[in-house]
């Protein structure tokens, strides 16, 4: 399996780590319980699996992320563009925007991003 491929639940769990790292594993259990509705054992199982895949790291009961959130997002978005739009970014943007109108600010920001990427 590709290392960055995350199931919905794994992604949500990783988000908790990204938002709170470095985080004590006991605190992470509590967080998962309130945010995800998970039992302690579920949290530890998922944590172990993500550590084995080199996405998270659990050292002396402190959990940190090895892969950055942006990396995971990059992978996810590329998968979507590849799978559904034949890797064509313009096609993806067209579909994504659809009927939606962009605000002035959003359009500015997009323009800046595209210019930076083209440079």
């Amino acid at each position: 399996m590709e290392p960055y491929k995350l199931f919905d639940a794994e992604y949500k769990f990783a988000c908790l780590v990204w938002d709170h790292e470095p985080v004590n594993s006991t605190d992470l259990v509590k967080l998962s319980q309130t945010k995800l509705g998970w039992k302690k054992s579920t949290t530890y199982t998922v944590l172990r699996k993500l550590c084995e895949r080199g996405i998270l790291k659990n050292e002396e009961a402190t959990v940190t992320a090895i892969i950055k959130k942006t990396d995971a997002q990059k992978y996810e978005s590329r998968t979507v563009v590849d799978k559904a739009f034949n890797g064509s970014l313009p096609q993806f943007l067209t579909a994504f925007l659809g009927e939606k109108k962009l605000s002035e600010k959003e359009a500015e920001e997009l323009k800046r991003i595209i210019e930076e990427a083209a440079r």
Partner: protein
Amino acid sequence: MTSLFLTILNMSITASYVALAVMIARFLLKRAPKIFSYILWSAVAVRLLIPVSFTSSFSLLGLVLPQSKAGTGFMEFVPQSMGMQKNPMVDAGISGISRFINSALPAAVPASSANPMQIVLWIASIIWITGIVVLLSYSVLSYVRVRARIRTATLVRDRLFETDRITTPFVCGFLKPRIYIPTGLSEQELSCVILHEETHIRRRDYWIKPLAFVILTVHWFNPLLWLSYALMSKDMEMSCDESVVREMGDRIKGSYSTTLLSLAVRRSGLATGSPLAFGEGNIKARIKNILAYRRPSPWMAAGSMLVSAALVLGCSANPKSLAHPPQLSSQPLYSGYDMEKLMKNKTLYVGNHIKVGGLIGGMPRPNGLEGRGIELQTKAQPYGVTVYYVANDGTAVLKDGASSGEAFYRNSILMLSLIDNVNWITYSITDPADPDDGSAYTFTLTREQAEKMLGEDVRSYGKDQTNLRQLIDRLERLNFKETGSAV
């Protein structure tokens, strides 16, 4: 184990009749809200759950034994028992003790007896148990699999959890039921789905469906019950669909149907598998039902309520209500004995010739014999009855002296049990075709002999129909070879 199997078989057959009745009623209620069809299935469940207090394996066994003795084939067994199983139903009053003794009886026999019927029954029971074990382990396994899959489902709110590892929403959990939904549902879809699943929870369907499946597991050999389970699940889903439409109004129909359809499309071969999960199934029929659903008129609702209530009560509560009349008409005889007539003509005094005549009329008359009246000896002790027969069809019916004698002795013992103060019974048969013209065969049985044969006062069997049946069964098995004196 065999007797347990027979009990289950009995219940299964009874339930099949009820299931058929439900299916017919369901057809009549096609236009009515599906909740009524759903309720109807409770009658079948009750039939399958109410244990031996209503059905006793006793009578079935009693009827199986003589039948296999007579050398009838195996194939006749099931239809025969179908007829027979109605008998124990009439007698709701069969005591638990007599049931226990009688169900214990056959267990002792298989080792010593070469009776093929019992071996067949024994093998059938083994197959039955094996089937249950296989089915149960399969469903436990698939339940464990589903549980593993939804372990990492994440909380959305309250008892709503989402996960990308399932494709169709369902309710799971026995004590704290939770709704599990696939990820990526739109708000519109979500509201329909939640309403549907909440209805399941409100109705305790998450208990009913597993319970129904466990019952089905025990009766796995009955295809009619598999059909019933499928139809019940369908009714369950449809009535939940209807409740969504009722709550959200007719405008929801279109988007609700779309939701169902899109969920069905998502489900690409990856079946949830577990019979305990909800959702899925019959999407086409369900959409049709949703679109056709109309709020029932009060008239319709009242009518449907009446039909379902009548059927559920009639089929489940009291076996005497619905089960009684057809049984009387279809099965008045027990092994050829007219039980009603025998009990009606039970008498304390042999001098009552009308009752004695009635008793003889209630017993099977051997083929080729014609009654020639009875003679009562009531002047002095010991009192007795002589029953006269004449062979009427020329063929020497008495050639097989031993077996005809058996029938007469059997009847004699029955008369001794039902006529309190009689001391002996004689059957006298003349055969005009016999070379020694005018000679008579007589079979006499005294109360003393009868008590010796059965080891107890036969009058105790005359108490009621149940006991009398036991006597008939015992007599069928009794060996008369060395008894009596054919003259």
